[in-house]
């Protein structure tokens, strides 16, 4: 691998750490009573509200339909996601140092697989959150579940929820892109060398 490629891989690896400084997903919430809007940010290590009290308020509202309280301590992903990111970043730096092209491909595959697994896990969490309702909830609408959308908008009673990847995910995407481009450039260079 060229020095430039190694620098690119190192840079891409460090980009992964961007997930520590910005959320990876955002769920926007609109309701007639909330003209000012509310929102939830999903980080690799925490869940926060868009406004300082949004999480608290949403938890308060959700008890009417029997949804569980969003409690960071009950979401183990928030503990191991940061570890995974750190391990990936370290591995990437190691690969850059070693300069092994095949390992770059392996890294790309691992990130893509982990990404798919992560999205699936998020979906399952949303499913559980929206379906596993307290039977004593004051408001029960027959046949209604409250799973937030994974991507795009969904009307849930009076609430319109819009779910979109956020800047943290863009960091991962950019990292993946740089790694892929570097890999293909290397591949091309190797072919023309032959």
């Amino acid at each position, binding site marked *: 691998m060229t020095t430039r490629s190694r620098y690119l891989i190192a840079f891409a690896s460090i980009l992964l750490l961007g997930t520590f400084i910005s959320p990876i997903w955002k769920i926007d919430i609109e309701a007639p009573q909330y003209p000012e809007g509310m929102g939830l940010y999903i980080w690799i290590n925490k869940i926060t509200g868009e406004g300082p*009290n949004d999480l608290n308020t949403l938890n*308060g509202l959700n008890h009417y339909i029997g949804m569980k309280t969003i409690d960071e301590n009950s979401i183990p992903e928030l503990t191991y996601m940061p570890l995974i990111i750190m391990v990936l970043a370290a591995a990437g730096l190691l690969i850059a140092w070693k300069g092994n092209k095949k390992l770059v491909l392996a890294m790309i595959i691992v990130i893509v697989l982990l990404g798919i697994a992560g999205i699936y896990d998020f979906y399952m969490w949303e499913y559980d959150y929206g379906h596993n309702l307290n039977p004593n909830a*004051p408001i029960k609408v027959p046949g209604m579940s409250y799973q937030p959308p994974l991507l795009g908008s969904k009307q849930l009673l009076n609430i319109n929820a819009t779910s979109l990847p956020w800047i943290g995910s863009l960091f991962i995407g950019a990292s993946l892109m740089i790694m892929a481009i570097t890999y293909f450039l290397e591949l091309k260079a190797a072919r023309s060398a032959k």
Partner: protein
Amino acid sequence: MKKRILFFAVSLLTLPVIFLTGCGKSSSALDTGDAAQKVYVNPGEYDEFYSFMSGGFSGQVSVYGIPSGRLFKVIPVFSQNPETGYGYSEETKAMLNTSHGFIPWDDAHHPSLSQTDGLSNGKWLFINANNTPRIARIDLKDFETAEIIEIPNSAGNHGSPFTTENSEYVVASTRFSVPIPNADVDIKSYKENFKGTISFVKVNPESGKMNLEFQIIAPGLNYDLARAGKGPSHGWAFFTSYNSEQANTLLEINASKNDKDFIAAINWKKAEEYLKAGKAKDMPADYYHNYVDEKTRVAKSENLKTVKVLDPKDCPGMIYFLPTPKSPHGVDVDPTGEYIVAGGKLATVIPVHSFSKMLKAIEEKKFDGDVQGIPVLKYAEINAGEVQNPGLGPLHTEFDDKGYAYTSAFISSEVVKWKLGTWEVVDRIPVYYSIGHLMVMGGDTKKPFGKYLVALNKITKDRYLPTGPMLTQSAQLIDISGDKMKLLLDFPTIGEPHYAQGIEASILKKDFMKIYENSKNGNPYATKGEKDAKVVREGNTVRVYMTAARSHFAPDNIEGIKVGDKVYFHLTNLEQDWDVPHGFAIKGMTNSELLIMPGETRTILWEPKQPGIYPFYCSDFCSALHQEMSGYARVSPAGSTVQLSYGTSK
């Protein structure tokens, strides 16, 4: 002579009424034009200005939007308000303490917005209590009363609070002279024993906290209204007075005899120097200072026992009298700070004094004798001009940004527009009816907004659908942006609106409070979470630490209360969501309900007299299950063995 004056006044009063009731309707219909468009604010959109109006005998302050004339809030200030618990709850009761004891009411006249360099800064609103002399400060972050200070050695705090250019001070003056210190004397000994005081209340520029810095003992006249100077006249304050006759009975006749009364011009910077030089005497006094503690948000009272008093005899150059025709009411300083306009309510002209001429007259000692040692300046030496034919009964003047002044005329029921400098009347518009104060947005600052004028009327008569003998009071919005004034809107007001203040909405909107933060709730009886809710007995006092959150109280079942107990409900609203107050009411409560804002703790005392079951509930429709937000308290006979228990059934 006496009879003639009375006849004159009566005929003046009735003439405009006859005239206006005759053709008021048709003229207002003709005037409409595009008025509807100018005052229409689209649903969901905002007014351009806030207007704070005094509630007069309601004791409160109301908040209106201009140009729509929509009422947003009534801020409880000097009167108890069972709607929110103000003056009833343990956290707010102390606000209404005075040296005369707890007072549930007062008469609030003149709101005054705090200023920086002669412009409203949107931090605080001050307002006077006329009956039991006090000044209140409202915090404009949460639009709640934060402080009330009593003014000792005073009676009838009318000429107040009228801020100085940087809110260094708000002022107070005695509409009624009284013996100082108060004493049991023959009323007929007025001339000998009665005095006035003019007080300067210092405002802390950071916290807004008020402190009665000093008082000036003044001759026994009726000090009426006030204004601080600005620009070149910054450092001075002007106080109108009437009753230079020093009458103590039938004032309407006996205090209306002299051709001229006085405006007291006070050099408060000089007064500060005398204060520093130790010229003030400590005088024993008895007055209350009540304020909301910043950490706990619980009102505290302190009883103060001394006040610094300056006597003009010891302080030459501190105070002068400007002779002014016929019992002047308002005194208003134009935006440049040069002209001092008096509203001689019985005068046939509006006299305008010049500040620079006043300084020159002082320097050249152009005096016309003195009153109890206070030099009286020569009228001709200080007068800048007289507005001829200004309407009958001119009271108050405000200014626009184009060099015009607007004077309210009570008897002829009109607003008169005239030009500063030429003193020429250029326009007049009838108002319905009998205007008192008027207010141009920012009209008392260095930069008025020459867009709207609000007429604050004393008589309503036939302007709205009738409601029996007692009618609403009325304000009128007048467009002053063009050469001709145009009536845009009538809107009803609470109580009696004396004066008002206007400020651009954008100043207050940028830093307003949505909630009180739970983490900053320093109330000693706050319950920070549902799991901390509890009921504690201390002798025959029972303290209920209760939380409110949509849609339940915790605890909501309480047993073990006995007849004879004093039960304090300490309600904490745990919400941190905008516009989600909770209410608390329990059957048979003899004081008031509570309205608790998000993040707030409020306490109400309940003393049940009969055993039984007493439901309590949330009185502010908070949520879909608001009707379920309720609970029961069980009251057992005195000496019963029912144990204290409480909880929420899981």
